[in-house]
C-alpha cells in the first residue's frame, strides 16, 4: 500500500496545460479568418465627416481606396500643407488617379472588374476643387461607382 500513497504528500496536483494549444489555435483561426491586412499607412490627415444615411461597404475585395487630406506633420516639411492625394503608399497628382484606377482594376479578377467601387476617404477640411478634379478623372476611366466614406453620426456636427 505504501507504494501507492507515496506521492500524496499534501499539495495540490498541477493544472494540466495540455489543452492550451487547442485554445490558442481556436483563437488563431478566429483572427485568421476575420483579418484584413493593412496595405498602406496613412500619410495624410484623415478625419472623415459624419453622415446618417450611410450604407456599408461590403466585400472589401471590390473596393479601391483614394485618400485625400493635408499631409501629416512629418511630411509637411516636404509636401506643404495643401491637401494632397494618396494612392497606395505615395502622394500622387490628380493626373495619376486615372492610371491608378486602371492598374488596380487590371489586378482584380475578370468578374470583379465591372463592379468595383472607389471609396473616397477625404478629410473634412479638404476643398471641393480637388475632389471635383478627382471625380472628373474617375469619369474619364469610367469608374462611376463611388462611395464617400464617412463616420456614422449627426451630419450637422460637420459644420462646427
Amino acid at each position: 500500500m505504501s507504494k501507492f500513497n507515496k506521492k500524496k504528500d499534501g499539495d495540490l496536483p498541477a493544472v494540466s496545460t495540455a489543452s492550451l494549444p487547442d485554445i490558442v489555435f481556436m483563437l488563431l483561426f478566429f483572427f485568421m479568418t476575420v483579418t484584413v491586412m493593412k496595405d498602406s499607412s496613412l500619410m495624410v490627415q484623415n478625419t472623415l465627416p459624419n453622415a446618417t444615411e450611410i450604407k456599408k461597404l461590403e466585400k472589401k475585395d471590390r473596393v479601391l481606396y483614394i485618400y485625400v487630406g493635408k499631409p501629416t506633420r512629418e511630411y509637411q516639411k516636404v509636401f506643404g500643407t495643401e491637401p494632397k492625394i494618396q494612392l497606395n503608399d505615395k502622394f500622387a497628382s490628380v493626373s495619376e488617379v486615372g492610371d491608378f484606377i486602371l492598374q488596380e482594376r487590371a489586378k482584380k479578377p475578370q468578374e470583379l472588374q465591372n463592379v468595383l467601387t472607389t471609396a473616397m476617404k477625404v478629410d473634412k477640411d479638404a476643398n471641393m476643387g480637388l475632389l471635383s478634379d478627382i471625380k472628373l478623372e474617375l469619369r474619364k476611366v469610367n469608374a462611376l461607382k463611388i462611395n464617400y466614406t464617412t463616420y456614422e453620426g449627426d451630419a450637422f456636427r460637420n459644420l462646427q
Partner: protein
Amino acid sequence: MGRRGGPAEVNAGSMADIAFLLLIFFLVTTTIETDAGLDRMLPPIEPPDENVIIKQKNIFTVNINKNGQLLVEEELTNLKDLRAKAMAFLDNGGAPSGDPLYCNYCKGKRDANSSDNPDKAIISLKNDRETKYATYITVQNELVGAYNDLRNRESQRLYKRDFTDMEAEYLNPETPESVRDELKEKVQNVQKLFPQKLSEAETSSSN
C-alpha cells in the same frame, strides 16, 4: 539506441509557443470594422445623344458657396431646412389628375409651379471649388435623406417595412438567396416611385 516499438515521438511542447506567435501576428494586423459611407454614381463622361428638354419647374437647384452658405431655388436657406424643402419638391406631384404624369401616391401641395412627378423631378447640386468637403457631405446627406424619408413612407404603406431596412438586408451578402430575390423586387418597386435623380454640375470657381 535502446528504443524499441514505433518511431520516436516528436516533442510537441513548443507548439503552443508557435501558435502564440501566429496569434499575436494576426492580432496586430487585424482590422475588423467595415467602412460605411454615402454611395453615389457619377455621370458618364460622354454626353447623352439627344437633347432632353427639362422644364425649369422640374429642377430643384442647390448652390453651395465657398463659405458654406446655401442658395436653394434662388433663396438663401439654412442647412437644417434643406431636407424639408427637398421633400416638398420631390413629393409635390403638380401634374393635374387625368394627366399621364399624375402622381397618385404624392402627398405634397400639388403646386403647378413645382415638380410634375417624382419621376421628372431633378435635384441639381452645384458647389464652389473652395467649398469645404464637410459642408458638401452634409448637403449630400440631407438630399439622400430626403429621398430615403419619402421611400420609407411609401415602403411602409406598401410592405409595412422601412425601405432603408429592406435595402440593407438586400445588400448584405449573408442574406439567403431566396430572401434576396423577394426583397429585390420590393426594393426596385419603391425605387421606381422615387427615383434618385441628383445631378452634379461641374464646380464653378469663385473668380
